[in-house]
């Protein structure tokens, strides 16, 4: 059964690129185009990894991360969250990590790095 990756992102170009990249690796790709839809999608689908844009049109990625971590669902408290931003604001990385994200990646998203990060979280321990 393919692992599920949820990408919360309002930019269609980034969405298309990441979708293509992850599907090429055999992942099931889920997406949401705003923060509230992202939280809902995460709660109902229990993804294995979440990619989270920070600059979203409704609630920002920090708030999404906080809501997921505080949701009470163990699958969301521990799901790996990779923050993805364009670094447009001071302290994005620090805030993302403080909000509960595990890793921070800047746009443009290097696809090799994305694969490596996702696979790093999904690797089965020996």
């Amino acid at each position, binding site marked *: 059964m393919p692992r599920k990756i949820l990408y919360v992102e309002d930019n269609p170009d980034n969405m298309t*690129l990441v979708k293509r*990249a992850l599907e090429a690796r055999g992942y099931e790709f889920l997406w949401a185009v705003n923060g509230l839809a992202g939280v809902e999608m995460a709660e109902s689908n229990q993804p294995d990894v979440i990619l989270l844009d920070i600059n979203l049109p409704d609630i920002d990625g920090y708030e999404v991360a906080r809501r997921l971590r505080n949701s009470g669902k163990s699958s969301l408290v521990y799901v790996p969250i990779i923050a993805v*931003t*364009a*670094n*447009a*604001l*001071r*302290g*994005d*990385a*620090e805030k993302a*990590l403080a909000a509960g994200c595990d*890793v*921070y*990646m*800047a*746009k*443009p*998203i*290097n*696809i*090799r*790095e994305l694969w*490596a*990060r996702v696979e790093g979280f999904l690797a089965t321990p020996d």
Partner: protein
Amino acid sequence: MSFLIDLKCTECGTSYDPRNLQTYCLNCQSPLLSQYDLKTAREKLDRDAIRVRPRGMWRWHELLPVYQAENQIFLGEGDTPILRLPRLGEQLGLNNLFLKDESLNPTGSFKARGLATAISKARELGIKKVIIPTAGNAGGAMAAYAARSGLEACIYMPKDTPFSNMEESRIAGAQVILIDGLINEAAGMAGVKARDEGWFDVSTFKEPYRVEGKKVMGYELAEWFNWKLPDVIIYPTGGGTGLVGMWKAFDELEALGWLESKDRPRMVAVQADGCAPVIKAFQSGALFCDYWVEAHTLASGLRVPKSFADQLILRDLRASQGNAVAVSDEAIIHAQKQLAVMEGIFAAPEGAATLAGLIALIQQGWVDPAERIVLFNTGTGLKYLKQPN
């Protein structure tokens, strides 16, 4: 005439036409590197003929990406001196210690090389306005080359960037925007402005040609050492263009058949311990750097929390069997003074960091006293003087 024939993605190998404006790979968002017809170049070029051409970076023009000579913007960049450091060498127990002094470049830093190439190529491709995020020296260099080529320039820099970098940019007519953040945040803002207003973004490795100017440092080293490359190169690493560029230069020189020995230098990246993503990744065996949270160092050029080309830097360090060293700001200040007192060189903090890194390597027993070791001073210390009250 340039032998440039192709731009190739460093990860997926996709080709891009250098006769059109390119940025980075659209498939995997990795940097592009220029590919030259080195087979033909090997037949037609003579390294000794290049040696006697007029001084400067463009004497290597066949191996640079600009097709038309009238687009080569020249302010005197390149052919910086390689100085033996006899007093420091004696003190450190090293017989062959050298420093390549990039502070002699226009605008006082090695950034002139990359920006000369990038702006020249941008002009050739019809670009009218260029934008850059900078930790300092790249902004001043871009402003100068943009001014000389008649391009409009916009520069995003952290508000605590050295004052001289702001002023040299402004006096060259650039629009300077100071931001409350680091270079990565400046890059984000510059990227937004570029997209919204049609500026061409010449951020490190987000266009393919700055690295081409930087690689000439590698050509110059090879030529100066009579085509037998030095044993160790110690380089301050922020965005990593110089390190990646020199390794590319060595590949090209080998393909041209110009090197007298196949031995390559061991490349060493030096960063400040307040911002050492490359060192952390190198030491942990990672393929990519983690973003360095709360980056801080007095060496503003080393305050790069994560380079866009991190995987290339790590790849080349490992290919060279090199090393990566973090040094403290205190060690940088001490090294800066040592270079000035013992050798008369007022180095930028980033350049001084290479001496601090060398001292750490000596303590580790990683260098041999007889090896030919080259430090890189990437800029002049004069640009870091505080504004008088």
